[in-house]
Protein backbone atom coordinates (compact mmCIF):
# COMPACT_ATOMS: atom_id res chain seq x y z
CA UNK A 1 0.00 0.00 0.00
CA UNK A 2 0.91 3.63 -0.27
CA UNK A 3 1.04 4.28 3.45
CA UNK A 4 1.37 2.58 6.80
CA UNK A 5 -1.69 0.47 7.43
CA UNK A 6 -2.94 -0.48 10.88
CA UNK A 7 -5.72 -2.78 11.99
CA UNK A 8 -8.07 -2.81 13.66
CA UNK A 9 -8.92 0.89 13.60
CA UNK A 10 -10.91 0.49 16.78
CA UNK A 11 -11.00 -2.29 19.33
CA UNK A 12 -13.09 -2.60 22.47
CA UNK A 13 -12.07 -5.45 24.71
CA UNK A 14 -12.87 -6.69 28.16
CA UNK A 15 -10.35 -6.36 30.94
CA UNK A 16 -8.19 -9.47 31.12
CA UNK A 17 -8.49 -10.40 27.47
CA UNK A 18 -5.53 -10.45 25.06
CA UNK A 19 -5.42 -8.19 22.00
CA UNK A 20 -3.32 -8.14 18.87
CA UNK A 21 -2.71 -5.01 16.85
CA UNK A 22 -1.29 -5.23 13.37
CA UNK A 23 0.93 -2.87 11.41
CA UNK A 24 1.80 -3.12 7.75
CA UNK A 25 4.63 -0.67 7.01
CA UNK A 26 5.41 1.06 3.75
CA UNK A 27 6.98 -1.37 1.34
CA UNK A 28 10.77 -1.24 1.50
CA UNK A 29 10.95 0.49 4.86
CA UNK A 30 13.37 -1.31 7.12
CA UNK A 31 12.57 0.54 10.34
CA UNK A 32 9.29 0.14 12.22
CA UNK A 33 8.16 1.82 15.41
CA UNK A 34 5.30 1.43 17.86
CA UNK A 35 4.15 4.35 19.99
CA UNK A 36 1.29 4.71 22.45
CA UNK A 37 -0.72 7.87 22.98
CA UNK A 38 -3.15 8.24 25.84
CA UNK A 39 -5.98 10.74 25.48
CA UNK A 40 -4.61 14.26 25.15
CA UNK A 41 -1.06 13.15 25.85
CA UNK A 42 2.19 12.96 23.92
CA UNK A 43 3.56 9.89 22.22
CA UNK A 44 5.18 7.23 24.36
CA UNK A 45 7.82 5.14 22.62
CA UNK A 46 7.22 1.40 22.92
CA UNK A 47 9.46 -0.59 20.59
CA UNK A 48 11.65 -0.14 17.52
CA UNK A 49 12.64 -2.66 14.85
CA UNK A 50 15.48 -2.00 12.41
CA UNK A 51 16.28 -4.56 9.77
CA UNK A 52 17.64 -7.77 11.25
CA UNK A 53 18.94 -6.13 14.42
CA UNK A 54 17.56 -7.05 17.80
CA UNK A 55 14.58 -4.79 18.53
CA UNK A 56 14.82 -1.95 21.03
CA UNK A 57 12.18 -2.96 23.57
CA UNK A 58 13.13 -0.36 26.14
CA UNK A 59 9.76 1.41 25.98
CA UNK A 60 7.50 -1.56 26.64
CA UNK A 61 5.69 -0.73 29.91
CA UNK A 62 5.39 -4.27 31.25
CA UNK A 63 5.91 -7.91 30.34
CA UNK A 64 2.28 -8.02 29.23
CA UNK A 65 3.39 -6.18 26.11
CA UNK A 66 5.28 -7.86 23.30
CA UNK A 67 5.83 -7.27 19.62
CA UNK A 68 7.25 -9.17 16.73
CA UNK A 69 8.04 -8.41 13.17
CA UNK A 70 7.89 -11.29 10.76
CA UNK A 71 9.98 -11.33 7.62
CA UNK A 72 11.09 -7.77 8.17
CA UNK A 73 7.67 -6.47 7.19
CA UNK A 74 4.39 -6.82 9.10
CA UNK A 75 4.49 -6.29 12.85
CA UNK A 76 2.10 -7.40 15.57
CA UNK A 77 1.85 -5.76 18.97
CA UNK A 78 0.31 -8.08 21.55
CA UNK A 79 -1.09 -6.99 24.89
CA UNK A 80 -1.89 -9.82 27.27
CA UNK A 81 -4.36 -9.63 30.13
CA UNK A 82 -5.40 -6.10 29.19
CA UNK A 83 -5.98 -3.51 31.88
CA UNK A 84 -8.02 -0.33 31.73
CA UNK A 85 -4.86 1.78 31.76
CA UNK A 86 -3.90 0.15 28.45
CA UNK A 87 -6.68 2.15 26.77
CA UNK A 88 -4.96 4.42 24.26
CA UNK A 89 -4.22 4.92 20.60
CA UNK A 90 -1.43 2.65 19.42
CA UNK A 91 0.47 4.25 16.56
CA UNK A 92 2.77 2.44 14.19
CA UNK A 93 5.30 4.21 11.99
CA UNK A 94 7.94 3.21 9.49
CA UNK A 95 10.94 4.82 7.87
CA UNK A 96 13.20 3.95 5.00
CA UNK A 97 16.11 3.37 7.31
CA UNK A 98 16.89 3.72 10.96
CA UNK A 99 18.54 6.72 12.50
CA UNK A 100 22.26 6.62 11.97
CA UNK A 101 23.55 9.92 13.25
CA UNK A 102 23.70 13.57 12.25
CA UNK A 103 23.59 12.88 8.55
CA UNK A 104 20.43 10.84 8.81
CA UNK A 105 17.16 12.42 9.77
CA UNK A 106 14.82 10.05 8.05
CA UNK A 107 11.19 11.09 8.12
CA UNK A 108 8.95 8.53 9.73
CA UNK A 109 5.49 7.91 8.34
CA UNK A 110 2.63 7.14 10.69
CA UNK A 111 -0.40 4.96 10.31
CA UNK A 112 -3.80 6.17 11.48
CA UNK A 113 -3.53 4.23 14.70
CA UNK A 114 -5.54 1.60 16.51
CA UNK A 115 -7.89 2.93 19.19
CA UNK A 116 -7.96 0.44 22.05
CA UNK A 117 -10.61 0.69 24.75
CA UNK A 118 -10.47 -1.73 27.66
CA UNK A 119 -13.75 -1.94 29.58
Amino acid at each position, binding site marked *: GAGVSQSPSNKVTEKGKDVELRCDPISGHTALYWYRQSLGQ*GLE*FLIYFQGNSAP*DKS*GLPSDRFSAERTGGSVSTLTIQRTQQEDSAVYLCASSLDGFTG*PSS*GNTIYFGEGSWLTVV
Partner: protein
Amino acid sequence: SQQGEEDPQALSIQEGENATMNCSYKTSINNLQWYRQNSGRGLVHLILIRSNEREKHSGRLRVTLDTSKKSSSLLITASRAADTASYFCATEHNTDKLIFGTGTRLQVFP
Protein backbone atom coordinates in the same frame (compact mmCIF):
# COMPACT_ATOMS: atom_id res chain seq x y z
CA SER B 1 12.98 10.35 30.63
CA GLN B 2 14.26 11.92 27.44
CA GLN B 3 10.83 13.16 26.48
CA GLY B 4 10.76 16.75 25.43
CA GLU B 5 8.35 19.28 26.75
CA GLU B 6 6.41 21.80 24.78
CA ASP B 7 4.78 25.01 25.72
CA PRO B 8 2.24 26.24 25.70
CA GLN B 9 0.14 23.12 26.15
CA ALA B 10 -2.68 24.91 24.38
CA LEU B 11 -2.84 28.02 22.21
CA SER B 12 -5.87 29.83 20.80
CA ILE B 13 -5.50 32.55 18.19
CA GLN B 14 -7.46 34.29 15.46
CA GLU B 15 -6.92 33.62 11.77
CA GLY B 16 -4.13 35.74 10.38
CA GLU B 17 -2.18 35.85 13.62
CA ASN B 18 1.12 34.08 14.10
CA ALA B 19 1.42 31.03 16.34
CA THR B 20 4.63 30.21 18.20
CA MET B 21 5.24 26.90 19.93
CA ASN B 22 8.33 25.99 21.91
CA CYS B 23 10.02 22.68 22.58
CA SER B 24 12.71 21.87 25.12
CA TYR B 25 14.69 18.67 25.42
CA LYS B 26 17.19 17.21 27.83
CA THR B 27 20.06 15.49 26.04
CA SER B 28 22.08 16.27 22.93
CA ILE B 29 20.40 15.57 19.62
CA ASN B 30 21.24 14.72 16.04
CA ASN B 31 18.21 16.48 14.68
CA LEU B 32 14.79 17.74 15.68
CA GLN B 33 11.58 17.33 13.76
CA TRP B 34 8.13 18.84 14.03
CA TYR B 35 4.97 16.85 13.37
CA ARG B 36 1.29 17.72 13.14
CA GLN B 37 -1.60 15.56 14.35
CA ASN B 38 -5.24 16.04 13.49
CA SER B 39 -7.90 14.70 15.83
CA GLY B 40 -5.70 12.16 17.61
CA ARG B 41 -4.90 10.16 14.50
CA GLY B 42 -1.63 9.66 12.62
CA LEU B 43 1.10 12.27 12.67
CA VAL B 44 2.38 14.06 9.60
CA HIS B 45 5.96 15.26 9.26
CA LEU B 46 6.31 19.03 8.82
CA ILE B 47 9.96 19.97 8.95
CA LEU B 48 13.36 18.72 10.10
CA ILE B 49 16.24 20.78 11.44
CA ARG B 50 19.68 19.30 11.98
CA SER B 51 21.82 19.93 15.04
CA ASN B 52 24.22 22.12 13.05
CA GLU B 53 21.42 24.33 11.70
CA ARG B 54 19.92 27.31 13.48
CA GLU B 55 16.91 28.20 11.38
CA LYS B 56 14.85 26.61 8.65
CA HIS B 57 11.83 27.70 6.61
CA SER B 58 9.14 25.79 4.79
CA GLY B 59 6.24 27.81 3.42
CA ARG B 60 4.54 29.50 6.38
CA LEU B 61 6.61 27.50 8.84
CA ARG B 62 9.78 28.75 10.49
CA VAL B 63 11.77 26.59 12.86
CA THR B 64 14.66 27.67 15.03
CA LEU B 65 17.04 25.53 17.04
CA ASP B 66 19.24 26.62 19.92
CA THR B 67 21.37 23.67 20.97
CA SER B 68 22.99 25.63 23.79
CA LYS B 69 19.56 26.08 25.39
CA LYS B 70 18.31 22.70 24.18
CA SER B 71 15.24 24.31 22.71
CA SER B 72 13.42 24.81 19.44
CA SER B 73 10.52 26.91 18.30
CA LEU B 74 7.96 26.49 15.55
CA LEU B 75 6.39 29.62 14.12
CA ILE B 76 3.33 29.42 11.89
CA THR B 77 2.75 32.74 10.17
CA ALA B 78 -0.59 34.06 8.94
CA SER B 79 -2.45 31.17 10.56
CA ARG B 80 -5.57 29.64 9.05
CA ALA B 81 -8.44 27.73 10.59
CA ALA B 82 -7.07 24.63 8.84
CA ASP B 83 -3.91 24.89 10.95
CA THR B 84 -5.97 23.78 13.96
CA ALA B 85 -4.23 20.62 15.19
CA SER B 86 -1.75 19.34 17.76
CA TYR B 87 1.91 19.97 17.05
CA PHE B 88 4.71 17.79 18.38
CA CYS B 89 8.44 18.13 18.36
CA ALA B 90 10.50 14.95 18.11
CA THR B 91 14.18 14.58 18.82
CA GLU B 92 16.57 12.07 17.38
CA HIS B 93 19.33 11.05 19.73
CA ASN B 94 22.16 8.59 19.38
CA THR B 95 19.86 5.93 20.74
CA ASP B 96 18.29 5.30 17.36
CA LYS B 97 14.75 6.24 18.28
CA LEU B 98 12.62 9.33 17.92
CA ILE B 99 11.40 10.84 21.18
CA PHE B 100 8.28 12.98 21.03
CA GLY B 101 7.37 15.95 23.14
CA THR B 102 4.10 16.45 24.96
CA GLY B 103 2.55 18.53 22.20
CA THR B 104 0.82 21.88 21.79
CA ARG B 105 -2.87 22.01 20.90
CA LEU B 106 -3.42 24.90 18.52
CA GLN B 107 -6.89 26.30 17.89
CA VAL B 108 -7.25 28.89 15.14
CA PHE B 109 -10.58 30.69 15.12
CA PRO B 110 -11.99 31.99 11.83
